[in-house]
């Protein structure tokens, strides 16, 4: 019997070899099935160690198991005030839990956890980061010096504009010419039904 392989020339097998190969393959399949049956409880919920992935690299950067500190509300609150320096524009907590590809935010998280383990409070940890990286490490500028302008200029500008607008409107209202067709009596006299009827008549007369 001749089996022709597409690229590698010819492969010669006699009948016995062919049958042996066939039987071997069958047994191999059965064995592997049995092997799988034996191993399969491992991949069932809660029955054994988790299996290895076929290609772990496809799942991204290898990760460490989540610790209690990772879910600590205090740690999270600190990390939400710190700006990740990877260029993502997110806070450390959001960055490290978004697509988990960043390597900067996990390092910053480790540092926060270490500092907290040393007994530092939230403000002390934040101050430590500011000392190391400058105020740009904060998600919002501290409320001091020129930064106060950042917080209060919009509100003050709106209040000032509101005062000016009110004064201007009051002056306009005082100097406005008397209304030839005062709106007030019409508003008082016109019920919704009457207004709707008037609209209807006007619409009928319009183009």
């Amino acid at each position, binding site marked *: 019997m001749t089996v022709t392989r597409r690229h590698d020339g010819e492969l010669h097998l006699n009948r016995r070899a062919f049958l042996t190969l066939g039987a071997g393959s069958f047994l191999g399949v059965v064995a592997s099935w049995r092997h799988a049956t034996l191993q399969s409880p491992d991949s*069932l919920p809660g029955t054994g160690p988790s299996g290895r992935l076929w290609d772990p690299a496809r799942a991204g950067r290898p990760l460490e198991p989540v610790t209690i500190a990772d879910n600590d509300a205090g740690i999270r609150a600190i990390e939400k005030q710190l700006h990740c320096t990877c260029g993502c524009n997110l806070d450390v907590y959001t960055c490290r839990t978004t697509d988990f590809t960043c390597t900067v935010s996990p390092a910053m998280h480790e540092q926060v956890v270490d500092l907290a383990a040393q007994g530092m409070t939230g403000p002390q940890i934040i101050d430590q980061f500011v000392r190391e990286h400058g105020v740009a490490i904060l998600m919002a500028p501290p409320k001091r010096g020129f*930064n106060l302008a950042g*917080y209060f200029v919009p509100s003050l500008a709106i209040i000032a504009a509101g005062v000016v607008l009110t004064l201007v409107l009051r002056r306009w209202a005082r100097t406005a010419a008397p209304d030839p067709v005062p709106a007030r009596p019409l508003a008082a006299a016109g019920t919704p039904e009457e207004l709707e009827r008037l609209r209807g008549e006007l619409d009928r007369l319009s183009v």
Partner: protein
Amino acid sequence: MTLLGTLALWLALLVGVWGALAGFVGGLNGRADLAHSARHAVFAMCGALLVAVVSLEWALFQHDFNVEYVAAYTSRNLPIFYTWSALYAGQKGSLLFWATVLSVFGSLALVLTPRHHRELLPYVAGVVSLVAAFFVSVMLFGHANPFQRLPYTPLDGNGLNPQLQNPGMVFHPPMLYLGYISITIPFAFAIAALLSRRLDTDWLVAIRKWTLLSWLFLSIGICLGMWWAYVELGWGGYWAWDPVENASLLPWLTMTAFLHSVMIQEKRGMLKKWNLALIIGSWLLSIFGTFITRSGVISSVHSFTQSSVGYFFLAFLIVAGTASFALYTSRLPLLAAEARLESMVSREASFLFNNLLFIGIAFSVLWGTLFPILSELVQGTKVTVGPPFFNQVNIPLGLALLALTGIGPLIAWRRASIPNLQRQFAVPGTVGVFTALILLVAGMRDFYALMAMALGGFVAGTVVQEFARGARARHRQYGEGYALALGRLLARNRRRYGGYIVHTGIVILFVAFAGMAFKTETEASLRPGESASIKSPYGWTYRLTHLGISQYDALNRQVTAATLEVTRDGKRLGVLTPEKRQHVDGLGRPTFQPSSEVGIRSDLREDLYVVLGGVVNGTEQAVFRFTINPLVWWVWYGGMIIALGGLIVMWPGGSPAAKRSQAGYAVRLVGEDR
């Protein structure tokens, strides 16, 4: 085809320059031949740019990887849907898209504008030609030619950024671009009105539909962007006050202010200066947004297309801003109001305060966006201005605006009387107070969320009252059933009642935003069979059981998917399959870093949002982030209702009162809104 595309760009540039010259000279000297030529130049430029778009799409679909743009943004295995959208995925293609859409809009404006505005049209053609020619010149002289060839031909392209391979990204950028681009048409009419000195209210009628169209596209584009960010980026939110997001919000705010204040000009002949300033400002902000997106001067997670072309836009912004300002100030004496405000308690006054808040919010967003640069200039220190800053400054302003959304429609035009105010405010005010009380009793203690929901109740009360009164009046007058009366009420005065539908959408958005105050999140690493629990703000407990991980190949990616069984208070809800995706090119080579595909289980009350972080030691033990986001679906519903309201307002036909006004005789009824 790329040669044809480049030739088309050069032709578009030459025709655009001619169109600008002919338009302005023809308009200023009253030369009909030049005006006619400018109009034809816009059509010709549109044709040339469409040829360039077809050429680029041809290169994209032919996988002509010798073209640098095609190699940079596509690959052989990229789905057709995204191959098409690669047209605007990169800097160069999006510039071409922008110029082309502008020329299409310009052509439509020239064709569709009624004849009695023909004095304005040469200038409109001139402005459109000038702006489109600028975009083409950026492509040709700013190293942004999408037809540029490589010295070699790669076997396959880079592929499209995985985050852009999402249906939201197919529709979000074009919608936003359409919004940005279509602002040029009202701007062109404003400049035409200034140049021609035809500064009555007539030109506003010509641009009414265009301003609404811009606003509608911007609204839809922003909402789609929020949806894309939520389902694709994996950070569990939809708005991060990123500079690029802010850049899209700025013209939306000023356009919305304009849509309100223009009613005062149409009804009373007031605020001419203000309305012109808003139109010019909106257009300048759209160019500013383009500068922010493309320059990289402010770091942004969305800036997919940073390059030096940003400085072309900065120069254009400065020149266009200076020229517009000079023209505007020179015409100020011609922009006197035809009437004066009669009372502080009037619809006009409430619209002015509404405008103050819109512009105030726009200013605070712009201020916050630029503050890092300002800080660096003044104190030599760069600061980060993130969501905590913007929330602190803008939430109170937003709530004040929401209150005015309910107050404005309750106050009569010209002058409101005390009995009228009492009658108008009784029901909405009661609804607002009761909403607050119910929420307080239910245990809500977050001040801003409580205020947002109470004010939402107040505004909803206003809208329902307006519809109910109108329908009841029709029912009594014409004997119509309430449903028919409601339908006819809407059909006969689309601008007014469509506007109320938009207000309803805004209320829903605010309530949905307030829901995010109750977001909860946790991380867990689970082996197959292990579970994690997370408690929802409604008191339910979700339990997520990790069933295992599968790996398989899809069209252009290698997928690692985790399967999680979800139960809520013991009741099985189904499975979620968050994924990690490693995108590959046609030769199986990885193209980008692995990206996350979020698993989301939504209902009207809350979303369960699951991100697969990765695996531990190459095993099936996986790291997850679980988040519960309350009321997220209402953000999308709110967006849809806003779009529906905008469409109703825009729909042709509409109010006879508006027709009366356009026919030249405005009859005003107290409380009537056109």
